[in-house]
Structures are given as C-alpha cells and as structure tokens.
C-alpha cells in the first residue's frame, strides 16, 4: 500500500525497557520526521532526517535514538523507556511544497 505506515499501533512497555517504533514510507521522500503529541504541548519534533544516513535532533531528542539506513524506513528507539515518554508518536515525511504526510501514530504507554 502506498503511503506512510507505523508499527506497532499500540505498545505497552515497562520502565527501563528498550522499545523501537517503526516507520515506513513508499513515496521516496527525502525528509522524514518523528513527533510526539501530548495534551497541552501539541506536536513536538523529536528527530528528523534529511536523507539516508543523515539525521539530526529536534526540540525534544533526549532519551531517543534514530537511524536511517534506507530512505523508506525511519525507526525511533527509546533506549530506556521512562513514564514521561508515554505519548502518541507520529512519523511524517515531507512533500515537495514542505507539506507533511503523517502516519496513523503509535500510542505508547510506559508503566
């Protein structure tokens, strides 16, 4: 299917565990982004990538790691999950007019 997909859609994990959220896009867009969305904070940029093997920090990168070995994939890893990382995570890719196309989100709960 064309578009941008995220997996898993829902995840419950324990404090201290490592968890990886997957993102896949089929448009071959160069730019990809990871956001978290929390009530009262709106969408906050965690990391972004301009191309394969090029990544950089956004507004709230602490506790997260990204990689981008292939253009279509942009996984986000929480190295040691904390309760403050309970959130809804969105992956997005950027089109030609700077518009962004979002995935359906991953709802992560850290207990």
């Amino acid at each position, binding site marked *: 299917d064309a578009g941008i997909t995220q997996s898993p859609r829902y995840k419950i994990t324990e404090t201290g565990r490592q968890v990886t959220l997957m993102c896949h896009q089929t448009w071959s867009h160069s*730019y990809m*982004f990871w956001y978290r969305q929390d009530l009262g904070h*709106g*969408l906050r*940029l965690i990391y*972004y990538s*301009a191309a394969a093997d090029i990544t950089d920090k*956004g507004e709230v990168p602490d506790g997260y790691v990204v990689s981008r070995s292939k253009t279509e994939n942009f996984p986000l890893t929480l190295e040691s999950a904390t309760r403050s990382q309970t959130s809804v995570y*969105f992956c*997005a890719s950027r089109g030609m*007019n*700077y*518009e*962004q*196309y*979002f*995935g*359906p*989100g991953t709802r992560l709960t850290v207990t």
Partner: protein
Amino acid sequence: TQLLEQSPQFLSIQEGENLTVYCNSSSVFSSLQWYRQEPGEGPVLLVTVVTGGEVKKLKRLTFQFGDARKDSSLHITAAQPGDTGLYLCAGAQNSSYKLIFGSGTRLLVRP
C-alpha cells in the same frame, strides 16, 4: 522563538453554524498548511497556501493566506458533525527543514 498562535483553542457549535479559525504569527512563511486530525489518527493535510492573499476552497471550507504571509484563516460554512476534529495550522520557511505548528483548535459540531 517562532510561534503560530491559533484561536480559538476550543469551539463547540451547533450543526449548520459558521465558524472561523485564525492562525497568526509575527514571522513570514513561504507556505502555510492546514491539517485536520481525528481521534486516534494522524493529522491529514487539507490544503497548502503559498501566495500572499491566496484563497482556496475545499467544499464548505475556505482558507485564506494573509497578504503579508504571516497569518491565515479557515472558515467553515454550515458546519457538519463530520467536521469535528483538531485543526492545526503549520508554517514553512524555505530556510528551514521543519514546520512550525500551531497549538490547534479543537472543534466539536453538535448534531
């Protein structure tokens, strides 16, 4: 810090009423986008406006980009319950990789 201020934050109206949502900034944007997000889903792009003074219509939704490209508005005519959702504006600047998101307007249209 570049900000996009959206107003109102919350809006609850009766089906059939008209409404306007505003998005204001002191910064100039090369383009501005409007997104709608429904519960449990990612934001979906509604429109991109690029030229100062531009007006775009999408059925009952009318989008306007300010002449100075610092502000935008979204007008909905005869709102329907299906219009319920979170509306986000986002500004792009050619010099930056990222979008500046507004804090959102949560719209509830009551039948």
